[in-house]
Structures are given as structure tokens and as C-alpha cells.
């Protein structure tokens, strides 16, 4: 599973970092999401999905590692 951020939509709420700091961080200059490695480590899939669904901007999306489209944010 991969997780992808749209930086045009991200407004730096940092809800994703609160919910899954193992995958999401916030950059120190613009205050937007940073995903060091879009490949989600095994065992963190549920936490990442929860972070995606809690993004108030709908700026996060998960995709299958083979590149096929996956589910997006809750809005």
C-alpha cells in the first residue's frame, strides 16, 4: 500500500501526523505534510487509512503498490 499527498490541497492541519507519526511529518518551512517513504510499512495500514480519512482537506490518498487506484479521503 502506498500513501500520496496533494500539496496543493494540504493546509498543514497536521491531523495525519497526530494520528500516524510513523509515516507523516510536517515540514518546518511551509508547514505541509511530508511523507518520507510513500510505501506504507507492514502493520501501519490501518493507521494510515485513518489518517487519510481524517484529513479535513482531502489531501491524502492511498493507492495499491502496483500503481492501481485506491481509496481516497472521506469527502
Amino acid at each position, binding site marked *: 500500500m502506498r500513501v500520496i499527498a496533494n500539496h496543493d490541497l494540504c*493546509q*498543514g*492541519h*497536521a491531523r495525519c*501526523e*497526530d494520528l500516524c507519526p510513523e509515516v507523516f511529518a*510536517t*515540514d*518546518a*518551512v*511551509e*508547514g505541509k505534510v511530508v511523507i518520507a517513504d510513500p510505501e506504507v510499512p507492514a502493520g501501519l495500514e490501518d493507521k494510515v487509512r*485513518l489518517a487519510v*480519512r*481524517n*484529513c*479535513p*482537506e482531502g489531501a491524502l490518498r492511498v493507492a495499491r503498490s502496483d500503481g492501481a487506484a485506491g481509496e481516497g479521503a*472521506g*469527502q
Partner: protein
Amino acid sequence: MTLKFQPSPPDHVPADRMVDFDMFHIPEGVSDPAEIWHDLVRRGVPEIFYTPHNGGHWVFLNYADIVEGYRNYSIFSTYQTPVPPIEPFPVVQPQGVDPPEHNVFRRLLAPMFTPTAVRGMTAELERRAAVLIDRFVARGECDFITDFAERYPTALFLYLFGLPEERLDEFLVLANTFFRSTDPAARAQNITEIYAVLDALFREKERNPGGDIASAIVAARDAEGRQHPWEDILNCGFLLFVAGLDTVTNTMAYIWRYLATTPAARKHFRDRLDDPDAFLLGIEELMRINAVSNLFRRVTHDCEYKGVQLRRNDRVILPNTVANRDPRVFKDPQVIDLDREVNVHLTFGVGPHRCIGSVLAKREVMASLQQWLRRIPEFTLAENQPAGSVFGGSVMGFTALRLHWDVATGKAAADQSSTIERM
């Protein structure tokens, strides 16, 4: 002077969208000012309606339209928005300007409010909460507003701006006049005083810079290497002064009022004092259910929105408290679920003007509640609540909230907690 941002008479509003609603008027006997908004939903008024009160304005009542009001700045501007309309109105930076100009100060402030920056403040957030609570804990009672909820965010403003703690009372007077005075002469004088204080502060930080936000703002340079216009610097200081005080004060008032009447919620947070992730999840739900801000926008040009004719300069109100209980977005929206998993509340807005201090605000509430529960694990509303202590408007809240607790129980809990900390 020609007035440029006055709404036109509502002859473009059809009769079936006209509702008699005054956001500043809380009827006698209403103990929660947010209820006047939820009452609109219960009455089934149109989800986009117009009221002639307060200079005339639209109200959006569903989540999707409120999101559009925040995001679509080509129609819904933050420039010159006051309700009732006032001209000229200070252009606070960066809240009062639209993208792309808005990005200049937004980018300047963003690094100071990231999770990493706020984590660096945690010890100070906790210390300042503890200092305030320790002053009254042995009394067994307090007025939560004047003893804590007003003082705490004001104390943190001093900290963020590199000002000495001794100036707290002076800043409290400035803030209280700003937020509560209804006397036009006192208000005008107050704004002059706030700007004079900010001017002196920024001049001082220009001469003797520190690691604080005021120093960073005054030291910042634009793309050509020049300092930002002094007026913008002052307006940015003004925004940071007014935006982080009243909102935090009243959010806390709502939260402590709820906790004082809900033993299970107190226990929920007490049981999670050593589990910050779970604690924060509960704070997030309290943020959803206690959204105190009703934000203003101004229509930029005559247009049709969802079949409704809007005119340039029409005002639009976005009530977060209504969006946050929209059943199309939230499962069981009226239920306060402190473990709620999906919670895309709009308490801090969305889009380019998302509250830049949202991470800090949540950490302020969290640090305060942690320090409070370690000292005062059980508390209730005092029986003698003063009448008429609620207010509506762009920020809703309380002018008084008397709390009561048993001193012996609190002391036992504090001793136990300090024993655990020593272990």
C-alpha cells in the same frame, strides 16, 4: 469618504430564503449560545438563508457549503468582512487578505506553529497552566473564566512574543476591553492602545531580537530583501493578539462546563493522562462539539451560487458548530464520542485561511486539562451561576463559569500523582 464594501439592500433575496435571525442575540433562559444555531436546523430553515439583522447577511447551514465558503476565495473573500459592516476596517495579516497576497505572511508565520515548533513549547504550556491552577486549587472553587481561561492564552501570548510574565494584567485589560466593551469610544481608544503597545514591542524586538515570534516578524525580509511594511507588521501582531485569546478562552469554557457536568468524561480523560494519543483523540472530539467561531466572508462579485443569487459585498456567515454536527458527514453527530475515529470537523476552518494556530490551540487545551485533572480530578458547576453570562456573535461563549471541588480529594490525587512521577 466613499464606502466600498457595503452590502446592497436584499431585493435579490427571495421571500422563502428570508429568516429572522440575530446571531448576537441570545434569548433569556438559553444557557448555551450555540443552541440558537442548532435551533435553525431543527426548525428546518433553508440551508442557505438571509437575515436582515446586523446589516443583513447570508448563513450557510450545511457542511459542504461551509467548506465552499472557506475554500472558494474567488467568491468568498476574507477582505473587509465585518458584520455588521464597518468601514474602514483594519486589514489584519494574513487573515484579512486573499491568496496570493495572503501567502506572504502565511509563509512567514507557518514555521512557528508546526507540530515540531509546538512540541518545543510543551514544557512551557504545562508550566504556565500549573502556575495558574496552583493559585486557586486550595480554595475549592474558582471562576474558570477570570481565574484561568482568560489568563492562560494571554500568558502564552506574552511567552510567544517574548514579553515578561509581569505584564499579564496589562494585556488582560487590553484583551477584555477589545472583546467585551460595547462603548464605541472605549473600543476606539482600546485599539489605539493595542497598536501602540505592538509598535513599541516590535521596535524593541528590532533593536534586541530574541527567539520569539515578534522578533521573527520584524526581522523577516521580502523577496527584494526589504522589511515588510510597518503597517503589515503591526496588523500581523494585532491578528496574533486577537485570534488566539477569545477563541481559546471560550473553547475551554465550553469544555470545562461539559466536564463539570459529565463524570464519565472526566474519568475518560483521567484514565488517559499517561496516554497522550488517546487523550488528544478526546480533545479533537471536544473541539468538534465545542466550535465557538462563526466566521465571516464577503462576496466578491454578483454571481449565482447553488441557484441562489448573491450580490457583491453580501456577507456570509459560516457557523462551524452547525457544520460539525452535519449528519451527512458525522456518524451520530449529536453523540460526544471521545474515541471518535473519523472526525473531519471544521473548528479551525479549512482552505488557505485554516487557523494557523490550530496545533498550538489543541496543545493548550490538552496541557491545561492534564495539569487540571492531576490537581482537580473531580469538579462540578457551582450552584450560584450568574444569570445572563452567555454571549453570541462571531465568537460565542461565557463571561462567567463558577466551578467547585472538594479540596481533600484533589490533594490526595495530587500527592498520588507526584508519588508516581517520583517513581
